[in-house]
């Protein structure tokens, strides 16, 4: 008798790591990895930095730029069946239907379809408007990143800010437009976000916060205050939407991604799991609120967990009850490394424990984030990794489930 038939939909980092973890845990599993992109699984974070820089400079052949992004895999050739270049369109009777009509019989389905960029609800200048999620997006954007060109970035989250920084390095004029009062505000909190806004301005970016777009004309954009900004190139970096439409009818809660229990099984289903950017689950390190987290580490952490669940259930067991991965994320802008641990976004207060926020980029800064007096996150800006590692250890200790400070602060 063969092992369980497991269909993983989405062949990026989360899908690939899930396939690898499954083959390690369940060598007899019959795994199919489905992906809508024609490319082999590749790494996305460099796309907004070195990736578009190399593509824009054009000195390195495109294939070589891509080869550097391809994720090294522990899978032996043929160990899982790869169905690249084909999207899944739905679930029918517990099996996965592909766009080419194929039905893939499945005992388990792992959704790893990730996210897509949210687009502006405005028409105009479509040939100059870009988003950045895929290698093909990066290729299209890079073609317009010429020195002296005028770039307008709509949305100052991490991707928007990284693109702005890369474009400055390439010699473009850059305007960054953000409806919130500061760039990266939700992730970094007001004080650090304000310091990052000043850091971008010092690097020559026109940062316009509290502003949104009124309309887009042939060669300029008009803001809600009437201001007109010339634009050869527009990047929409407005956040993302989960690719979960194909799961309609699965019984899962698709309110924002896929609502999962601690085993990463979708609530309301028996054999559907989700991993990566679309996985919405509660992290007991912080509280009982399910959240979707778009960090690079999440795919690896959830892939391992999903494989443990399927392997345990295949053996007729239950996986270990708790899933409490420590969040970690980073960004690189103008050569400055921003490195975060925990969940700064949940904090109410920020305390600079080393350095000076007005000197970001010139000297190391470390900021601690607290909620109700409880340490929930730490961010280093240009910090010595050894120093930051000690702060991370402090955070791990503070968030340990045995910590009395935490249990008294847990709220649903």
């Amino acid at each position: 008798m063969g092992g369980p038939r497991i269909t993983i939909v989405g062949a990026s980092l989360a899908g690939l790591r899930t396939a690898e973890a499954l083959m390690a845990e369940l060598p007899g599993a019959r795994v199919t990895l489905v992906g809508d992109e024609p490319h082999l699984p590749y790494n996305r974070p460099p796309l907004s930095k070195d990736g578009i820089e190399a593509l824009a400079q054009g000195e390195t052949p495109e294939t070589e730029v891509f080869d550097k992004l391809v994720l090294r895999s522990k899978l032996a050739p043929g160990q899982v069946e790869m169905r690249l270049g084909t999207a899944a369109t739905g679930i029918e009777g517990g099996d996965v239907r592909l766009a080419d009509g194929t039905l893939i019989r499945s005992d388990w389905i792992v959704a790893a379809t990730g996210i897509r960029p949210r687009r502006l609800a405005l028409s105009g200048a479509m040939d100059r408007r870009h988003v950045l999620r895929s290698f093909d997006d990066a290729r299209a954007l890079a073609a317009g990143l010429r020195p002296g060109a005028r770039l307008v970035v709509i949305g100052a989250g991490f991707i928007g800010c990284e693109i702005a920084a890369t474009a400055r390095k390439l010699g473009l004029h850059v305007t960054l437009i953000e409806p919130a009062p500061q760039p990266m505000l939700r992730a970094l909190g007001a004080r650090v976000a304000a310091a990052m806004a000043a850091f971008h301005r010092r690097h020559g970016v026109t940062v316009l916060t509290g502003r949104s777009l009124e309309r887009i004309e042939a060669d300029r954009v008009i803001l809600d205050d009437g201001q007109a900004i010339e634009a050869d190139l527009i990047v929409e970096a407005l956040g993302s939407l989960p690719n979960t439409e194909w799961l309609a009818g699965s019984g899962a809660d698709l309110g924002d991604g896929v609502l999962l229990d601690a085993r990463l099984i979708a609530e309301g289903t028996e054999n559907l799991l989700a991993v990566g950017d679309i996985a919405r689950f509660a992290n007991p390190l912080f509280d009982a609120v399910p959240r979707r987290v778009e960090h690079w580490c999440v795919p690896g952490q959830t892939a391992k967990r999903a494989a443990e669940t399927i392997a345990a259930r295949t053996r007729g067991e239950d996986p270990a009850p708790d899933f409490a991965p420590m969040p970690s994320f980073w960004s690189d802008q103008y050569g400055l490394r921003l490195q975060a641990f925990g969940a700064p976004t949940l904090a109410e207060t920020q305390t600079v424990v080393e350095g000076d926020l007005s000197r970001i980029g010139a000297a190391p800064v470390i900021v601690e984030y607290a909620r109700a007096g409880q340490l929930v996150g730490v961010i280093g800006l240009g910090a010595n990794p050894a120093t930051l590692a000690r702060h991370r250890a402090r955070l791990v200790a503070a968030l340990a489930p045995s910590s009395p400070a935490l249990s008294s602060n847990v709220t649903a």
Partner: protein
Amino acid sequence: MKVHVDMSICLLHGQCVIAAPEIFSFDDAGGLVWVAEIDEVQAGDAEAASDACPEQAIVLG
């Protein structure tokens, strides 16, 4: 098993130090140091570190 880090690729994210603290660590100057030769018991940790590296800079052999 041999452990090698391609320092021309490494960007000091420190994910390996988190995944396998007995193999990878930072010295006081913030440089990455690692145990170049590990036994089979540590192989799983080394592989976890390699998977966690966003730059794919860790080579195991």
